C-alpha cells in the first residue's frame, strides 16, 4: 500500500462526491445562464452588434470598388504620386463603369460619397453619369479616345487630383473618416496627414464645446445637488424618502415635456423675460437670450441630469455616521473646518460617481441640445445625428461616434487611474 492514501469521499450510492458536486454545480450554472439568456441576447443584439457595426462602417469603404470595379482594376498600375494622368484603358473602364452605375442610379451616390473627400466630385459624377452613354456612343462612332472625349466633356477629368481620389478610395478599408472626424486631412499626393487650418476645424471645436459644456453641467449639478443631498441625508428617513421621491419626480415626466417647458420659461417672449420686463428690471429691447444657445442647453440639462448627481451623493452621505463630524468637533475643529476636513472627503466617492455619471450622460446627450441648443449650444451628438439623417455620411457619423466612445472610455480609464473605479458608490 502506498504511504500517502488519498481519501475519496463517496456519496451514499457510492459515486465520487467531488464529481457529483461538480455536476451539480454545472447544472446550477446552466440554469443561471438560461435565466440571463434573454437579457444577454438583447444586449448583444441591441448594444454589441450596433457598436461593432459602427466600428465597421467607420472604416469600411466598398462603394468605389462596387460602383467602379473595372476602373479600380485599371488604376492598380497607375502611380498616384506622379503627375501623369492614367492611361486610356483607365478612362475606358471609367466610362463603362459609369454607364452601368448610371443605369443602376449609383453614380450620383458615389459622387456624393467622394465629395466628402474632395469637393466638386458630386457635380462631376452627376454630370458625367447623366451624359456618359452619349459620350460612349460618340467615342464608339468616331473611334476616338475616351481620354480626350472625357476631358473635353469636363476638364476635371484632366486633373490628376480627381483620379487620385478614385485611386485612394479604391481601398476597401480606409481611416479617412477618422481623419475627417478629427479635422485632419490627408494630402492627395503625399498621403501625409495634417490638421486642417483652425478656421476649418468643425469637429474638434464641437468635441471641445461638448466637453466644456458637459463639465459645466457636471459642476452645476454638483453645486446644486450637494447641498440638497446633504439636507436630505440629514432628515429623518421618512421625510428624507419623500424628498427623494420629489428629486426623482422629473423622471416620471417625459424628457420632451421637461425640455419644452424650459422653452416656455426661457424664451425671449417667455415667462421669465415677461416677468422681468413687467417688474421693470429689463427693458422691452433688453430681453435676455436664455435659450437656443449654450445657456439654454446648460440650464435644461442641469435640470434633467440633477437626479443622477443627487442620488449617489445622497446614498454615500447617508452612510457617513454623524459621529465623524462630532469626533472632529470634539477634537477642537470648528464645525466649518470639520466639514471640509472630515465630512467632505468622505463624500468624494459619491461626488465621483455622480460626476462621472452626469458627465458621461451629458457628453452623449442629444435631444435637449437639439431642442434648446440653437447654434451655439449643440453637441457632437447632434452632428452625428445630422450625418446620419441629413447628410447621409454614415461613415463619418460612425467615426465620430467611435471617437466619442473612445473619449468616454479614456475618461473612465483616467478616473480609474486617479480615483479608482471601485471608489464609486451608488448605494
Amino acid at each position: 500500500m502506498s504511504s500517502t492514501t488519498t481519501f475519496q469521499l463517496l456519496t451514499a450510492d457510492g459515486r465520487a462526491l467531488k464529481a457529483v458536486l461538480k455536476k451539480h454545480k454545472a447544472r446550477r450554472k446552466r440554469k443561471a445562464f438560461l435565466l440571463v439568456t434573454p437579457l444577454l441576447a438583447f444586449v448583444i443584439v441591441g448594444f454589441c452588434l450596433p457598436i461593432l457595426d459602427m466600428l465597421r462602417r467607420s472604416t469600411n469603404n466598398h462603394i468605389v470598388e462596387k460602383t467602379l470595379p473595372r476602373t479600380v482594376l485599371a488604376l492598380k498600375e497607375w502611380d498616384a504620386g506622379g503627375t501623369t494622368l492614367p492611361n486610356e484603358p483607365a478612362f475606358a473602364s471609367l466610362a463603362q463603369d459609369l454607364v452601368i452605375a448610371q443605369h443602376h442610379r449609383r453614380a450620383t451616390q458615389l459622387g456624393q460619397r467622394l465629395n466628402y473627400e474632395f469637393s466638386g466630385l458630386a457635380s462631376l459624377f452627376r454630370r458625367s453619369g447623366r451624359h456618359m452613354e452619349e459620350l460612349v456612343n460618340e467615342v464608339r462612332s468616331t473611334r476616338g479616345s475616351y481620354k480626350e472625349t472625357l476631358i473635353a466633356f469636363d476638364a476635371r477629368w484632366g486633373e490628376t487630383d480627381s483620379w487620385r481620389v478614385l485611386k485612394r478610395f479604391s481601398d476597401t478599408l480606409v481611416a479617412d473618416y477618422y481623419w475627417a472626424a478629427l479635422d485632419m486631412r490627408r494630402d492627395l499626393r503625399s498621403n501625409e496627414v495634417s490638421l486642417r487650418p483652425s478656421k476649418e476645424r468643425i469637429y474638434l471645436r464641437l468635441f471641445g464645446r461638448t466637453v466644456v459644456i458637459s463639465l459645466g453641467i457636471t459642476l452645476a449639478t454638483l453645486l446644486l445637488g450637494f447641498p440638497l443631498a446633504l439636507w436630505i441625508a440629514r432628515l429623518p428617513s421618512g421625510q428624507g424618502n419623500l424628498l427623494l421621491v420629489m428629486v426623482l419626480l422629473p423622471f416620471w415626466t417625459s424628457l420632451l415635456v421637461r425640455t419644452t417647458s424650459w422653452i416656455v420659461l426661457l424664451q425671449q417672449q417667455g415667462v421669465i423675460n415677461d416677468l422681468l420686463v413687467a417688474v421693470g428690471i429689463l427693458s422691452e429691447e433688453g430681453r435676455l437670450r436664455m435659450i437656443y444657445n449654450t445657456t439654454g442647453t446648460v440650464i435644461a440639462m442641469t435640470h434633467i441630469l440633477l437626479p443622477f448627481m443627487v442620488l449617489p451623493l445622497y446614498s454615500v452621505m447617508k452612510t457617513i455616521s454623524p459621529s465623524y463630524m462630532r469626533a472632529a468637533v470634539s477634537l477642537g475643529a470648528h464645525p466649518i473646518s470639520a466639514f471640509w476636513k472630515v465630512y467632505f472627503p468622505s463624500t468624494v466617492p459619491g461626488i465621483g460617481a455622480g460626476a462621472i455619471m452626469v458627465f458621461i450622460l451629458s457628453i452623449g446627450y442629444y435631444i435637449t441640445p437639439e431642442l434648446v441648443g440653437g447654434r451655439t449650444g449643440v453637441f457632437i451628438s447632434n452632428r452625428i445625428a445630422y450625418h446620419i439623417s441629413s447628410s447621409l455620411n454614415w461613415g463619418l457619423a460612425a467615426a465620430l461616434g467611435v471617437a466619442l466612445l473612445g473619449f468616454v472610455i479614456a475618461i473612465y480609464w483616467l478616473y480609474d487611474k486617479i480615483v479608482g473605479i471601485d471608489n464609486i458608490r451608488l448605494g
Partner: protein
Amino acid sequence: MSSPSPHFVSFEHVQKSYDGETLVVEDFDLAIERGEFLTLLGPSGSGKTTCLLMLAGFETPSAGQIRLDGKVLDNIPPHQRDIGLVFQNYALFPHMTVAENLAFPLKVRKLDKATIAQKVGDALAMVRLQGFEHRRPGQLSGGQQQRVAVARALIFDPKILLMDEPLSALDKNLRDQMQIEIRELHRTLGITVVYVTHDQSEAMTMSSRIVVFDEGTVQQVAVPSELYEKPQNAFVAQFVGENNCLQGTVERTQGKTCSVRLTSGENIEAENVDNNAKGKHVLVSLRPERVRLAANSADLKHCQNKVQGKLQEKIFLGDHMRARFFACDKEGFVVNLPNKEGIEHVKVAKEGQDMAIGWRTEDCRALGLPKPA
C-alpha cells in the same frame, strides 16, 4: 449669582426632550469629582448617550445647567470645550492615516510640527501602536482602532474623557483586554472619565462609581460593590447582577427589618430598604449565591427564612453549581453554590426532589414597588 459648585463636573436639574413631549432625561443631578472613573449604566434608550452628548455640547439641555471645572457650559460651543470623546464605532477618519488622525486635534490647535510629531509618537507609544502610523483605520483590527480612538481623544490633554460604549463592537476576549488597558490609562493619566455602557460586568470592572439609569432618571449612584450588595430599588436589584425577585406585601415592620407575606403565602423576614410601611407592595430581592440548600429545613442553621422547593434542574459550571427550583410559586428560583465541600447532598440530588431552601434576613432586601404588579 450662585457660588461655583465645588465639583469638577456637575449636572444640575438637567432635562432633555427631543420632541417637546417626552422627557428623555428627567431632572438629572450628578456631581463628578476630578480623577473619577464614572460609569453610566442603563438599558438601551435610557438616555445615557444623551447625557454624554449634552456634556460634550452636541445636544443642549432643555432645562438645567451643566458645569465643568466651575464654568457653566451653556454658551461654550462643543469645539471649545476641551472634552475628549470616544465613540462606539471609533469614528476614526477613514481618509487619514493613524498619524494624521492623531495629529488632527493638534493641527487645529495650531501646534508646531515638531511638537505634533513628538506628541503623536508619545501617543502611539502609550497605546502600543508604534509602527502603525502610516496605516489607514480600515487596515487596523477593531481593538487597534479603538486604541487609536482613545489615543486621539487624549492627545490634546482634554479636561475630561467621555466614552460611549467604546468596547461594544469588540469580541469578548478583546473587550476584557481593552477594559484593563483603559483602566490602566485612567490610573496613569489621572484623567476624569465618564464611561457609558449597558454591560454591567464592564461597569463593575472599570468604574470607581456607577450611575444606574432608567427612563431618564438616576436610579442609584454607588460604588460597584454597594450597587451589587445594596440595590436601592427594584429596578437596580433586577438590572444589576442576577436576582431572585419575590413579590409580597409588608405585614409588619420592626426597625431595619420587616416581615413580608409573599404572594405565594410564605412569610419571610427581609431588610426594609426604603422604609416601606405596612401594607406596601414590595419586591424582595435575593442573590442566588446567598441561598443555602439542605435536605430538610432543620439542617439550615442561621437561616431566618426557610421555604420548600422542588429541584427543576441543576447545572455544573466548574467553579460553581447552579440549581433551579420551583419555590414560592415561582419557576426558576436560582441558587448558586460554590464548588467546595458541603454541597455533596446537592450534587447527588435528583431532579424533581424536594429540598429545603434558606437564607438570612440581611441577605434579602424588600424594595418598594411603585404599584402593585
